[in-house]
């Protein structure tokens, strides 16, 4: 007995088939085939060489040849892959049953055709080119994936391996072809590709709610045809409402839209309702008569009469967390029935769509929550301001009374001043919170006019200097610079930067303020000698509520909105802010503002603002 390895090696040598081992791994029956085939060829050769010998011997050899021929024919026919012997001109000399099954033609039909006839035109050239190279001795054999046209007109993907058998004198005798049907694999690959593609598309769209479901429906109708309709569950979880639909035929889509525009299905009602309740897919490979009758009596009737329906799948759209809706995919009359395989594919697509829908819902929830927070902040700030108004009003009344009557001691007087100062401080904090919510809600506006920026900076710096004990301000202010902007907002910017310079240099030091007119910008520079900002945090410094990690909130408190406001106000003026800082040495903030005429028109305040219902009087 030869070992199978030796046998394979021998067969490989005989036929020049280098990938025999991998072919046999895929299809073990091939080993039998090649073994019998080799024996048959050997007997043929022996029979020619002993033609002149004794008749006994000839008879013996003829019998052996017949036996090997029979054995070869049997293995050839029984092989589980398609096999053929093909003449150098492409005509089929011999084909096995499996090949007939693959292409849908009988043996007789194939005997009158060539492989060229059956090959899909796009794939023919490459096949012929390989065959030529084999005939020219440039290649021993080749293998390629190509398409045949089935007798029924459909395309079949096959994997083809071709070797050439040469006659004793070396002239090409015939090709041996091994043909494997890989349509299934190709379809799985194509669907996998589609799934990946669909996922990418759904996720890319997931932040644009109105387009998302239309995209999903369109993709699925195109992939699984002819029509796809997506219904989502209502907020009260009682009904399903068609949300998106697509048909490959625009006319059919138009008709479908009129049919489903007002449609609502109750949970558990109809097929969709049943799928919704059970959470399981439903395949109607063929439409049962009863359903056809129902459809004829339903709102779908005009659509059905024109386009028909031959097969249908209803798939639940559900994320891990909840049931979201259903997806119907159907084919018009003359279409092919859906298979369980299609249901698996549709379910995969629905799962991906569910993920995208879930993301979209979460995103909208988050947006809603942000909006609620800002509205709340805005209302809360106003509510805080009302008692503050009464408080500060009474302090002012007390002060006026005391001035009239002269009854307050100096200490009482000081307490009164502190009450008023701190009340104002509280008011500024409330205003800051309101500014943040205005920015978030897009209600932030500027009141723009031309003003003397040099004088403005000088005034703010002078006033600020009065409050300092441990710090010294050095100001270098170029005179005569004018700026077109919101003076109150710019005061907020300068106040915030000066306050920060002092706040983050708790050991005191010099705060340097410089105002310059550059070619295209006004530059305001504020430098301190404080604790500085770690380099890797400087880019995040202007984000809302951000506080640098080297700030100990137990020592230096703050909301983390000052620089956010500075950045936003400057940006609303068409300018920008730069920061430069070395930890333990200090920070420099540079505000660049456009020179007078450069303020973008879009940033100007609304000329006819409507009153804002979120801001209370």
């Amino acid at each position, binding site marked *: 007995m030869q070992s199978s390895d030796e046998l394979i090696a021998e067969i490989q040598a005989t036929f020049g088939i280098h990938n025999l081992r991998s072919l046999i791994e895929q299809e073990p029956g091939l080993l039998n085939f090649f073994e019998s085939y080799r024996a048959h060829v050997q007997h043929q050769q022996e029979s020619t060489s002993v033609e002149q010998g004794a008749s006994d011997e000839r008879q013996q050899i003829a019998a052996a040849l017949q036996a090997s021929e029979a054995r070869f024919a049997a293995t050839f026919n029984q092989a589980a892959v398609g096999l053929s012997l093909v003449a150098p001109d492409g005509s089929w000399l011999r084909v096995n049953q499996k090949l007939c099954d693959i292409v849908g033609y009988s043996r007789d039909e194939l005997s009158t055709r060539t492989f060229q006839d059956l090959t899909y035109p796009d794939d023919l050239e490459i096949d012929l080119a390989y065959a030529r190279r084999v005939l020219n001795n440039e290649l021993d054999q080749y293998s390629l994936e190509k398409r045949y046209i089935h007798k029924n007109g459909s395309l079949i993907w096959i994997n083809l391996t071709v070797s050439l058998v040469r006659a004793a004198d070396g002239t090409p005798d015939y090709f041996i072809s091994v043909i494997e049907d890989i349509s299934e694999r190709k379809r799985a690959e194509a669907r996998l590709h589609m799934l990946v593609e669909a996922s990418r598309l759904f996720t890319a769209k997931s932040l644009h709610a109105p387009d998302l479901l239309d995209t999903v429906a369109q993709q699925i109708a195109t992939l699984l045809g002819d029509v796809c309709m997506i219904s989502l569950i209502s907020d009260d979880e009682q009904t399903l409402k068609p949300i998106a639909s697509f048909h490959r035929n625009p006319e059919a889509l138009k008709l479908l839209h009129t049919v489903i525009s007002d449609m609502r299905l109750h949970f558990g009602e109809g097929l969709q309702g049943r799928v919704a309740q059970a959470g399981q897919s439903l395949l109607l490979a063929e439409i049962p008569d009863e359903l056809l009758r129902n459809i004829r009596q339903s709102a779908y009737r005009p659509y059905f009469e024109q386009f028909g329906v031959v097969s249908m799948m209803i798939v639940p759209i559900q994320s891990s967390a909840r049931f979201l809706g259903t997806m119907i995919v159907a084919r018009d009359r003359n279409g092919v029935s859906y298979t369980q395989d299609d249901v698996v594919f549709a379910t995969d697509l629905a799962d991906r769509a569910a993920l995208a829908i879930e993301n979209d819902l979460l995103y909208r929830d988050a947006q809603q929550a942000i909006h609620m927070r800002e509205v709340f902040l805005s209302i809360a700030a*106003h509510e805080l*301001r*009302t*008692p*503050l*108004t*009464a*408080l*500060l*009003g*009474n302090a*002012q*009344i007390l002060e*006026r*009374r005391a001035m009239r009557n002269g009854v307050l001691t100096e200490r009482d007087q000081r307490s009164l001043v502190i009450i008023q100062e701190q*009340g*104002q401080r509280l*008011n500024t904090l409330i*205003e800051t919170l*309101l500014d943040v919510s205005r920015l978030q809600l897009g209600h932030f*506006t500027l*009141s723009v006019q031309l003003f003397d920026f040099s004088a403005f900076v000088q005034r703010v710096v002078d006033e600020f200097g009065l409050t300092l004990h441990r710090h010294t301000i050095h100001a270098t202010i170029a005179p005569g610079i004018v700026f077109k902007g919101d003076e*109150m907002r710019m005061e907020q910017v300068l106040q915030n930067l000066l306050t920060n310079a002092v706040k983050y240099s708790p050991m005191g030091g010099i705060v340097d303020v410089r105002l310059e007119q550059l070619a295209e910008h006004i530059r305001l520079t504020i430098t301190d000698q404080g604790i500085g900002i770690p380099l890797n945090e400087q880019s995040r410094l202007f984000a809302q509520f951000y506080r640098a990690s080297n700030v100990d909130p137990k020592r230096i408190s703050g909301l983390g909105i000052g620089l956010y406001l500075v950045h936003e106000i400057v940006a609303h003026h068409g300018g920008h802010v730069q920061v430069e800082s070395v930890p333990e040495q200090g920070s420099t903030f540079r505000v660049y503002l456009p020179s007078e005429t450069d303020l973008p028109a879009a940033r100007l*305040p*609304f000329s006819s*603002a*409507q*009153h*804002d219902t979120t*801001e*209370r*009087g």
Partner: protein
Amino acid sequence: MSTSQSYNVLVVDDDYAIRDMLTMFLEEEGFNAVCATNGREAIDLLRSAADQPRVVLLDLNMPVMTGWEFRQEQQHDPAIANVPVAVISADRSIVQQPTIDAEEYFPKPLDLDRLLAFIQQCCD
């Protein structure tokens, strides 16, 4: 609230503490103030009074009838349309971008010195 005696300032605000503070302030400064808690009350007061006040201090967000609605109705009634109105609002942006037509705008918390100067000017 009284409509029989003559007064020169009408305070319209839904918050008790603010009405109280303003009446006390105005009385100490020598004015007579009458209060309304919303626009509707203010309209009724203006229409029933023998003498019109010299000025109305008007809050904006109020129940029943807002300051905006009050102002509209007031301006459409020739009998009371000429009474000057100053808006007192917690919305600071009202000063820069008024959403209502008025003589003057005072953001809350109120600067009483400024408010007093304005009222004196109206009563001269």
